[in-house]
């Protein structure tokens, strides 16, 4: 009989906490958005599924060996770990976890060893997180793949569009102010590092957001990644109203001059140029933009087709699977189900809005100053979220004027925005990291 009871007491149903049930529902909802509504499926399917796995009661897939020992272990192992981190035997779980968090190297190793000796191991998702995100490798490898898929032709044909890519990043810093403002009003509780990590959602770039969040505010990674990818999928809904609000009918009709053909040599020089500039001015952005330029060089140089093809397909797909599951492992109730997440979701959409608006305003200004006409609709593409934002500009352009094909013109600011948000990330890592 005692076995039967053990079977029941250790079952998921018996130990299911309210928070875990909610988070499993959140995971299922993300899957619904990804599969039915086609919300960035390549990321939100693994993230949603990882979220469900992370909240399976008693399985501890997202916990380290020590956390598993504290949750599932008997009193002796809990006391042993308490002593390992310098507390006396009777300490409660919360205190032990806090002490473990700040313990020095020796105590850390001792606690881990005690847990492993008591037959508790790291959860599967915890291992994926350590290898993929804690090391910083997965976001950088995906950014290399993105570089290998990016064509800088439209940007090189019209370098001025880089200003649009710059202006649209204002959403990032405005949101930092928003987060910091909410904290000072006592509504939220964000440090400057948290605020910076939330701001980066406005950069509308998955790998950059995950890279910055894992460095500055790992505990907010789950909410930030979900917000970043959801809003990128919502671009066709968030941007049009703002674009129509800030542009006049005549401006929307503007047809832009044909882009000149860009030769191979220029496309090879550009990533090297960008790399040297980063090396000289912003070393903190070296990992991000370094791998991005490496991917782009592999694409354009034409002599390493095999490597470029693998970087865009097999490698980026494998890394995306494990990145998604790792982000999903951060969707735990205690980190996700609190006011901060609501704050992040609200601030995130504001970031996108402000970024879109600034891009358009910049485009209006440039249209006045520049000799050749610049249709402000391409300004909104400066937030990056490649290639959706460019398609939105193109759609609205066609609505206003059926002969007005803005797609290639919008691709300029679109890829410029990727560089813009990587630079913004570099600055934030330097000042706040």
């Amino acid at each position, binding site marked *: 009989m005692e076995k039967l009871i053990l079977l029941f007491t250790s079952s998921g149903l018996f130990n299911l906490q309210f928070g875990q049930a909610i988070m499993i529902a959140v995971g299922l909802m993300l899957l619904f958005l990804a599969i039915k509504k086609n919300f960035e499926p390549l990321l939100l399917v693994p993230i949603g599924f990882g979220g469900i796995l992370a909240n399976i009661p008693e399985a501890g897939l997202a916990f380290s060996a020590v956390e598993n020992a504290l949750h599932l272990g008997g009193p002796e192992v809990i006391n042993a770990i308490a002593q390992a981190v310098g507390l006396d035997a009777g300490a409660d779980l919360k205190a032990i976890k806090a002490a473990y968090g700040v313990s020095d190297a020796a105590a850390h190793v001792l606690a881990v060893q005690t847990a492993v000796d008591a037959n508790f191991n790291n959860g599967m998702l915890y291992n994926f997180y350590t290898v993929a995100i804690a090391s910083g490798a997965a976001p950088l490898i995906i950014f290399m793949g993105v570089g290998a898929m990016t064509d800088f032709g439209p*940007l*090189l044909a019209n*370098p*001025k569009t*880089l*200003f649009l*890519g*710059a202006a649209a*990043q*204002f959403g*990032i*810093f*405005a949101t*930092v*102010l928003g*987060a*910091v*403002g909410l*904290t*000072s009003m*006592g509504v939220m509780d964000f440090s*400057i590092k948290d*605020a*910076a990590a939330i701001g980066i959602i406005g950069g509308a770039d998955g790998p950059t957001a995950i890279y910055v969040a894992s460095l500055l505010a790992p505990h907010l990674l789950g909410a930030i990644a979900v917000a970043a990818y959801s809003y990128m999928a919502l671009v066709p809904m968030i941007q049009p109203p703002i674009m129509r609000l800030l542009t006049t009918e005549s401006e929307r009709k503007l047809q832009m001059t044909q882009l000149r053909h860009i*030769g*191979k*040599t*220029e496309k090879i*020089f*550009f990533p090297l*140029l*960008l790399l040297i*500039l980063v090396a000289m*001015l*912003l070393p903190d952005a070296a990992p991000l933009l370094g791998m991005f330029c490496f991917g782009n060089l592999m694409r354009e140089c034409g002599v390493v087709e095999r490597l470029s093809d693998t970087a865009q397909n097999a490698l980026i797909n494998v890394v995306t699977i494990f990145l998604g599951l790792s982000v999903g492992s951060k969707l735990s109730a205690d980190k996700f189900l609190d006011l901060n997440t609501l704050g992040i979701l609200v601030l995130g959409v504001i970031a996108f809005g402000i970024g879109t608006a600034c891009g358009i305003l910049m485009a209006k200004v440039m249209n006045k100053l520049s000799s050749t006409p610049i249709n402000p609709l391409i300004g909104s593409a400066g937030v990056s979220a490649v290639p959706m934002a460019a398609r939105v500009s193109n759609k609205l352009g066609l609505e206003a004027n059926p002969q007005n094909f803005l797609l290639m013109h919008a691709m300029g600011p679109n890829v*410029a925005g990727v*560089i*813009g948000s990587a*630079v*913004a990330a570099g*600055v*934030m890592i330097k*000042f*706040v990291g």
Partner: protein
Amino acid sequence: MMESSDLINEGLTLMVFGMGFVFVFLTLLVFVTGLMSRFVERYLPEPVSAAPAAAPAPVTATDDGQLVAVISAAIKQYRSRHPR
């Protein structure tokens, strides 16, 4: 209140320096890219390639369309039976 206004200052400085740096960096990039393009146009002009690289074999237009349709269907059929 002292502590929170300190936070707002940090936020403001981050915004000013952040946007400032982003604009400085990208302005430099615009400038340097323009220089590079002119340099390449002058010193390393590319031989204008006559025919587009992947032109299909010179098959008379008429039956080409119909044949290509058949072939792509055959390829799709072949691919469905031999998933790589």
